């Protein structure tokens, strides 16, 4: 496969464009996604290729966008909706939680909801408390919704293709700060099965399960810790629902230590779920240190850039947590 470096953002756009060329039923809708190219420029240029019928601007109503997408999906279309900020899912919550997630089940399988809700999440852009949250645990809690959190350009393309193929509603969280990161991405179409974690780095002393941007911070920490002779394994679940528990369990069995890192507020975060998986699994007997969770501070994301940074785990925090955890190695 021909591989070149493109950005995470370009990988999102490429996945959508490839899918739209292959499948006429695929269309995208959202606020200002047409000529303007979307809040972050993800859909820039797409209206030229696919026209306003398939790249549809919508009114400023997330509930309406989600509702329209669900209706279209039920008629056999495969909509991709873009919400400008993942925080606005709250407005589309009734549609996503009470309709999208349950329709197929309540119709006894007679109606499918093959839609993807794409939305940028996370902090780091100085967009303050209403535009910087990480609310993925909310969606992961709802049966019927799949939740994807890609960390690399390669994963974005493969996972988005798989999400668009799925006959169920998928929430696809893109991290704002990752949009400009680049990575090796094949030109061809490929898919990454939902529910398959990726071991981003192999190690023997401690397992870090990290999501989204924290994958990169964990990798940075791991490189630093290597100098101290500490071998860190970094696992990126890539999808929270379905969750690849097996890969995590096997890794913890190998290392005997676990640290979970996510940007979302620690309390009630998805890290608790991962920890519980380990506590309930055969890996429990292999634990040689208490499990640690690193998550966002218990505050709304601050506007002040320094405070914003302080509110979420950073590389030194991860390094410190690892050192604490492997102390009795």
């Amino acid at each position: 496969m021909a591989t070149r470096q493109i950005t995470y953002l370009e990988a999102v756009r490429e996945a959508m464009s490839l899918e739209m060329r292959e499948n006429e039923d695929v269309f995208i809708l959202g606020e200002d996604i047409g000529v303007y190219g979307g809040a972050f420029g993800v859909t820039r240029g797409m209206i030229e290729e696919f026209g306003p019928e398939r790249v549809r601007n919508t009114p400023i109503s997330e509930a309406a966008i989600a509702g329209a997408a669900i209706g279209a999906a039920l008629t056999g279309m495969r909509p991709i909706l873009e919400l400008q900020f993942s925080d606005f899912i709250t407005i589309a919550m009734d549609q996503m939680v009470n309709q999208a997630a349950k329709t197929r089940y309540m119709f006894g399988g007679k109606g499918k909801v093959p839609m993807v809700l794409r939305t940028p999440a996370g902090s780091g852009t100085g967009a303050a408390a209403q535009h910087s949250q990480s609310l993925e645990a909310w969606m992961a809690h709802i049966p019927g919704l799949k939740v994807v959190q890609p960390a690399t350009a390669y994963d974005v393309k493969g996972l988005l293709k798989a999400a668009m193929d799925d006959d169920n509603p998928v929430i696809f969280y893109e991290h704002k700060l990752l949009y400009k990161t680049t990575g090796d991405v094949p030109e061809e179409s490929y898919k990454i099965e939902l529910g398959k974690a990726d071991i981003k780095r192999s190690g023997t002393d401690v397992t870090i399960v990290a999501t989204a941007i924290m994958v990169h911070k964990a990798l940075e920490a791991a490189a630093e810790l290597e100098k101290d002779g500490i071998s860190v394994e970094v696992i990126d679940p890539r999808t929270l629902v379905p969750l690849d528990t097996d890969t995590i369990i096997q890794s913890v069995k190998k290392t005997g230590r676990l640290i979970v890192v996510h940007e979302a507020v620690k309390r009630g975060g998805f890290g608790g779920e991962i920890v519980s998986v380990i506590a309930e699994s055969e890996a429990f007997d292999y634990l040689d240190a208490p499990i640690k969770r690193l998550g966002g501070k218990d505050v709304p994301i601050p506007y002040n850039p320094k405070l914003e940074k302080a509110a979420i785990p950073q590389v030194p925090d991860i390094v410190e947590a690892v050192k604490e955890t492997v102390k009795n190695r």
Partner: protein
Amino acid sequence: MAKEIFMPKLSSTMAVGTLLQWFKEEGETVEIGEPLFEIMTDKINIEVEAYDDGVLLKKYVDVDTEVPVNHIVGYIGAKGEAVPANSPGIAGGETDVREQAESVSIQQELSHNHIQTEEKPRATPAARQMARTNKLDLVFINGSGPNGRIHKKDVLLQLEDNTKATPLAKKIAAAAQVDLNTVAGSGAQGKIVKADILSALPAKSMESEPVLESMEIRKKMSGIRKVIAERMAQSAYTAPHVTLTTEADMIKVKELRTSLLPVVEKQTGLRLSFTDIIIKAAGTALSRHPHVNASVVGDEIVQYREINIGLAVAVPDGLMVPVIKDVSSKGLTAVTMAAKDIGQRARENKLLPEQLKGSTFTISNLGMYAVDAFTPIINQPESAILGVGRIQDKPVAINNSLEIRPMMTLSLSFDHRAIDGAPAAAFLTELKQILENPYELLA
């Protein structure tokens, strides 16, 4: 697969047993039901039979060694089958640390932080698993983590360290200041085990205090002796004892016995004894005074429907009280048979555990000695005990004339918490009257 042979638990209170002898050698064939070894518990000596056919592959425990209940003492299996070089410890994996600690007497003398605080050792799941797999007791591992938490590496260290001496041996050696380098190990690959340290101990003290050693013979109280010591002291301390005495004229008992002797002997081949008649008489008296056939349990008095009379029997190491069950429904012949059976078994150390359980009243007969009266100590949880003295011809005033009569003293000790003086006296009077008119026992 080789089957474990372990120290059986023969009563609810049994924590340890002493292995007295092996009946088989390693390599010998064993059949189900064959006696394999003999043990002494706090109550009895008993032969343990094989539960499996096969070859005795391994004996881990030497004679006269005290081992905890369920401790693996050996293996039976197919010839040539591999078994561990050392006993894997308690059968069934997990060991209750405290129970085991209590059972190994030497450990009680040693101060150990973990045991003293009775805290479960803090350990990571991985450390626990590793300790479990290697049959290591976490109590003996020093944790390097916060608050002494034991990590996998601590268990690994212990395992490496363990090549020379067992953890217990190390503890004892440390407490007794024995240099492990001076002790030869008798375990697998020369590993030093508890016995090695213990055998090194007397030699050490002989050197330091030879004079004192030669002037005394010291024997550690163990097994039945220890239990008797504890029980007697406990009974004397907890139950307020009052002893009543009276004399019974045994002339009619003597007549009865003389006439019944050939009858009973013909039926059973056994000789009717005075003790048998006294047991039966006591049973009859108890049935008329059921408040004596009782126990103090917590803040309740429990009165028993069945009359089970314990008979104190002297054995070489001490005293046992086997039980004749349901005396009131037994005739003299049946009582004789039961009493002879338990007496014989007691002397031959063949009492079954159930024959030592459930007595509601005890008789202690010292009539074969020059003893007239004594104050017996109640065999708790019972509430009364009857002491029987010798039958001695004495001058007795009867109808204004002096006669020589075979008199016997009865001493009744009772627990004043449960029984008051008057009802106890009424019971003793009843018993005296029955013995003086024993033909009613035949009714």
